[in-house]
């Protein structure tokens, strides 16, 4: 959309030496706005962002500042979706710029965006604001239900960032199961990636509430937390550096993913649920040898070894982990407009719900743009690439049955009319907003033919 710029319209402008045809290779702004006569639209903003990033990378403070100034006049947290998006992007760029000289700022890798902790009931509303999460919940739960037919015991290993919001509907469905309710165990890691949404209670408390609910529905239920965190980290000061502790977190998690530590039982149907989570596992090669796979691949290999009944993977359908900052900015800008646009359709510009949701996206933007290395934890991978990765790891995809597809469609019908769904290659369900891919949902089983 074209965004209205703000400024004093009556100021007289005098051109500075217009005949200076600048041939400096760093004449960056020239291309950016060529053609944008009038107002700035998404493409122009994107170019400005790219120019700014480029200026930062070339240490061109003047230019960066000028571009930022222009962007600053476009950005607004309470404007139209493009303005809001620009605002978060600009913030991320500034955050990045300030890291160039880390001496004065002792940013410990944490985000500058403050985000409060929500009570559980608020989180329940949050995840249903737009179908972004509920789509994945619905498709995955439906696939899980199908996969565990015939089993009387189910164990779910839940790796997600939404604090078990997925499970009440599954518990409800299991309780009503025609063949009788199975018993259900849910196991979660003790730590989660430091990303919003943040809850004001512990995982244990969440598990407690789920237990209550399951009891209320007469479903035998157990909730366990894998206690794998390095236990010496009781206060922030003891965490020597965020980087290494992050690595340690995932490494230690992997070390704790063993059948004995997880108490895997033979008569149980094992379900691996990865919901907006795989992207936090590093996709970089861990070592120089060919066989040193990435953490992500190692995780997949580990869970495959448990011989799960089904592995459901839901994540955001975009490749946002390219090494090049410019690519990331472009991809990010052309993807994250989607939730901003969706929220615009039914929430007012001053809605606090909307703002909080958007600021969580801003958190993601900041991580993608202003961090590098291990601190850049948002390593989104599109559905197509993820599917390839799963296949490489020895999984084959499972199609979603008609009932599932129908359920998802009726879910989407109850939301704003821009939401849609399509079925792509490899039985992948994709949530679309006005035709653009947003979230993908997949289900996998271990290849029967693979020998390990």
């Amino acid at each position, binding site marked *: 959309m074209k965004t209205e710029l703000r*400024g004093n319209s009556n100021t007289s402008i005098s051109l500075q030496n217009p005949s200076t045809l600048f041939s400096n290779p760093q004449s960056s702004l020239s291309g950016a706005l060529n053609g944008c006569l009038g107002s700035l639209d998404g493409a122009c903003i994107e170019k400005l962002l790219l120019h700014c990033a480029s200026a930062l990378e070339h240490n061109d403070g003047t230019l960066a500042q000028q571009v930022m100034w222009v962007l600053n006049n476009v950005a607004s947290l309470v404007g139209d979706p493009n303005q809001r998006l620009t605002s978060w992007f600009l913030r991320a760029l500034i955050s990045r*710029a300030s890291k160039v000289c880390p001496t*004065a700022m002792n940013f410990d890798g944490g985000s500058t965006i*403050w985000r409060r902790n929500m009570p559980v009931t608020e989180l329940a509303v949050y995840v249903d604001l737009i179908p972004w999460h509920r789509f994945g919940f619905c498709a995955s739960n439906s696939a899980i239900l199908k996969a565990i037919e015939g089993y009387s015991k189910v164990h779910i290993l839940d790796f997600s960032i939404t604090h078990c919001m997925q499970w009440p509907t599954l518990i409800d469905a299991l309780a009503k199961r025609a063949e009788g309710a199975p018993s259900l165990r849910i196991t979660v890691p003790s730590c989660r990636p430091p990303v919003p949404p943040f809850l004001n209670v*512990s995982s244990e408390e969440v598990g407690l509430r789920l237990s209550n609910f399951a009891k209320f529905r007469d479903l035998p239920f157990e909730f366990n937390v894998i206690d794998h965190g390095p236990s010496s980290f009781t206060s922030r000061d003891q965490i020597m550096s965020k980087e290494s502790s992050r690595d340690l977190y995932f490494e230690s998690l992997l070390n704790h993913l063993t059948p004995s530590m997880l108490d895997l039982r033979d008569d149980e149907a094992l379900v691996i649920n990865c919901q907006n989570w795989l992207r936090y596992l590093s996709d970089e090669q861990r070592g120089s040898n060919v066989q040193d796979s990435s953490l992500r691949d190692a995780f997949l290999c580990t869970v495959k070894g448990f011989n799960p009944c089904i592995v459901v993977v839901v994540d955001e359908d975009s490749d946002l982990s390219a090494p090049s900052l410019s690519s990331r900015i472009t991809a990010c800008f052309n993807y994250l407009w989607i939730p901003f646009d969706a929220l615009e359709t039914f929430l007012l510009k001053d809605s606090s719900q909307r703002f909080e949701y958007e600021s969580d996206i801003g958190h993601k933007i900041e991580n993608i743009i202003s961090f590098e290395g291990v601190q850049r934890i948002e390593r989104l991978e599109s559905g197509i690439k993820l599917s390839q990765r799963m296949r490489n790891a020895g999984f084959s995809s499972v199609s979603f049955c008609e009932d599932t597809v129908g359920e998802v469609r009726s879910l989407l019908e109850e939301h704003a009319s821009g939401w849609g769904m399509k079925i792509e290659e490899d039985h992948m369900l994709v949530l679309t907003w006005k035709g*653009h891919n947003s979230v993908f949902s997949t289900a996998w089983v271990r290849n029967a033919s693979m020998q390990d």
Partner: protein
Amino acid sequence: MPVDLDNSSTASGEASVSSTGNQPPPPPQQPPSKSAATAKKKRNLPGMPDPEAEVIALSPKTLLATNRFVCEICNKGFQRDQNLQLHRRGHNLPWKLRQRSSKDVKKRVYVCPEPTCVHHDPSRALGDLTGIKKHFCRKHGEKKWKCDKCSKKYAVQSDWKAHSKICGTREYKCDCGTLFSRRDSFITHRAFCDALAEESARAQPHTPNPNPKPIKESDPKVQVESSPPPAPLPPPVAPDFGSDQGQAPPGLAQSTGMISSPVLAIQSPELPDNPPQFIEEAPAPAPTPTPATVTAGFNGSFGSGTSSSSNGSSTSSVFASLFASSTASGNLQAPQSPAFTDLIHAMAHPDRPTDLAPSSIEPISLCLSTNQGSSIFGTAGQERRQYAPPPQPAMSATALLQKAAQMGAAATNASLLRGLGIVSSSSSSAQPDNMQWGQRQMEPENSSVTAGLGLGLPCDGGSGLKELMMGTPSVFGPKHATLDFLGLGMAAGGSPSGGLSALITSIGGGLDVAAAAAASFGGGEFSGKDMRRS
């Protein structure tokens, strides 16, 4: 991939697209015309597997036209030609159904004619004709249809019908009194609702504490085992990477709550409104048992168990004062402004409360707001936060850049930081080690860019003020007239940077886009193969 240029003159040089999908600038403004397709060009569309899709821009008239095909006999109108042809059979008129020509398999996408719309941009085009029609009607059309049960209005009749069908038909009610129209939200809420927790607590005579013991059902068949939390509450050892806001154990939250209540008092009176506002707006407020929960939650938000809360509040009030417009409601005072170093430290080390020294601040110098009266949302006496000044009259990109260049040249004396008295015009005292921005920037009058940028970064000290979150980043300062909002003293030593002047020149006189763009990305970073559309 080949570029398909339209023979119309509008395409001009802008239609050239590299194979990797760099974006050409959008088409120039065109008056709505009666013809169906006015511009065609190729774009890579995110999410669209077909990069050869053709972009079509229809006029508003075309999009809104409902019955374009009219029967000459009875004047009945039809939306589609096919339907008209079928109707003509009834009059025994010659009719002919047009087959979809097999060579016309090119995928088409449609853009919205409304220039301010997000879908005006070809990269946000919609994939089908019906979609863009409905979009245009819904978004930019008049909402003529109104639901009589609730007050929702619709521009498209089918939307209205669809809504009326479900409005009020299905309602799920939680014990806490909240209503839901969707079953899954109802179930999810119910599972976590306090009402359920209380009910189960009531059901067990010996229970209610946050550390439940496993409760065995009397019915031996149902082995319900609530596993006790492995880690006692408080505190679970949950290292939180990178953010203060981890999962605050409730116990800790309570104690933090004690600490932060006085802090609450310092805040603007708007503050206590905030969580209830959220809950209010949501369809799921839990009116009864939640005051405790809300408070706990809210207090828990003031830094998870660290002492950041007090710091947060002071920093936040600083920011609130910095960025509030001068007409902000009285509760956003500008009582203090931190010394600059303190501010930076506050943000860098949010768990160390800092003393923020007051200084005399002219609120007026803080904000550039020219619009003194109206809040953005038009309602006076809005008890919610006021942000930085509401949008000012539109300014063209050209003018903006020219202004940027112009201001760069002039010595500025009203920079944001200067206005705060933070940056002295002499060499910076706060940050002796100025950030080195390459060779260009070492000007004696600088404060460090870091510092300047640092100011723009909202604190993460656990502030609860929405106005902080909204006011601060909304502008990183008000929409300042000066280029020096980052506090560099002089943006470019005396003359506009080459970049800007080149830009202005190019807008005026057509620099070669490709060359400039390519040159600007020096190292070829912006290489197409890195660009991927999801």
